């Protein structure tokens, strides 16, 4: 007795058709004339292309990395040099300022010293101031 499901599908008939279709397909494939692929197989070309692309990408990435590293090192070197130059300049300015102020201070001291006359010498100083002679 044939098995028919609730939907009315004859399962056995369907499976028989399925079997027949595979048998027909298989027989047709086995009896067809064979084509021999000559030369380099296509899959190998694909593989070779994939490898070549992979190598190019890897080389590019490595070169880019090296260049980027070199660029960063150069930037860091320039920054260090600029900082050192700025520090040097600042130090020189400070030294220059310090020298000037020392000179001014000494001049002031000299002036003060020159004007400061002990009280015992005051009459002589007044005489020198009046006529400019001893």
């Amino acid at each position, binding site marked *: 007795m044939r098995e028919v*499901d*609730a*939907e009315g*599908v004859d*399962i056995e008939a*369907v*499976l028989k*058709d*399925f*079997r*027949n*279709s*595979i*048998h*027909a*397909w*298989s*027989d*047709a*494939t*086995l009896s067809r004339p064979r084509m021999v692929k000559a030369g380099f197989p296509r899959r190998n070309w694909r593989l070779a292309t994939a490898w070549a692309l992979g190598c190019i990408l890897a080389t590019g990435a490595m070169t880019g990395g090296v260049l980027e590293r070199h660029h960063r090192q150069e930037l860091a070197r320039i920054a260090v040099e600029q900082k050192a130059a700025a520090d040097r300049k600042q130090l020189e300015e400070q030294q220059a300022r310090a020298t000037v102020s020392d000179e001014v201070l000494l001049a002031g001291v000299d002036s003060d010293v020159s004007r400061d006359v002990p009280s015992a010498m005051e009459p002589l100083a007044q005489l020198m101031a009046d006529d400019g002679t001893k």
Partner: protein
Amino acid sequence: MVERHRPQIFRFLLSSTREVDLAETLTQECFLKAYRNWASFRGESSAMTWLMRIAINLQKDHWRNRRMQFWKTTRTNSVDMDEASEWLPSGESSVEQQLLARERVKQVWHSVEGLSERQRTVFLLRYVEEQELSEIAAATGLSEGTVKAHLSRAVARVRLELGGKR
């Protein structure tokens, strides 16, 4: 031996993979393996069962390797379900009946594709190769009870597909 068993082995591999080139390659590998290991064949089962076991292992390895591939190549040589279901002998039925039969075969293909590896193998051995449960058990290395269970689930799935798409 090759001439006698090649059509059946090829047919099983073709229905399992749905790729003509792959099925041919695996069939060649199957016979090459059998030739190399002929000394280990003890004759406990028939040569066909032994060859089928090799073929099952080969297609299993193939799917496992394919899953492991980093990039999955598209199935350029695979035949889609429309084309696979075209191979239906016309017989004496009407055009309408033929169309209906093709549609049903296509649905079976669809449901077979959704089966697990074991279910598919058992289903194809039973309904395409028309093997007995004991032969399927010997070829797959499963017990008859397990084969029966896989077959039952596979048929239920096919039935569901056929019933649901009416």
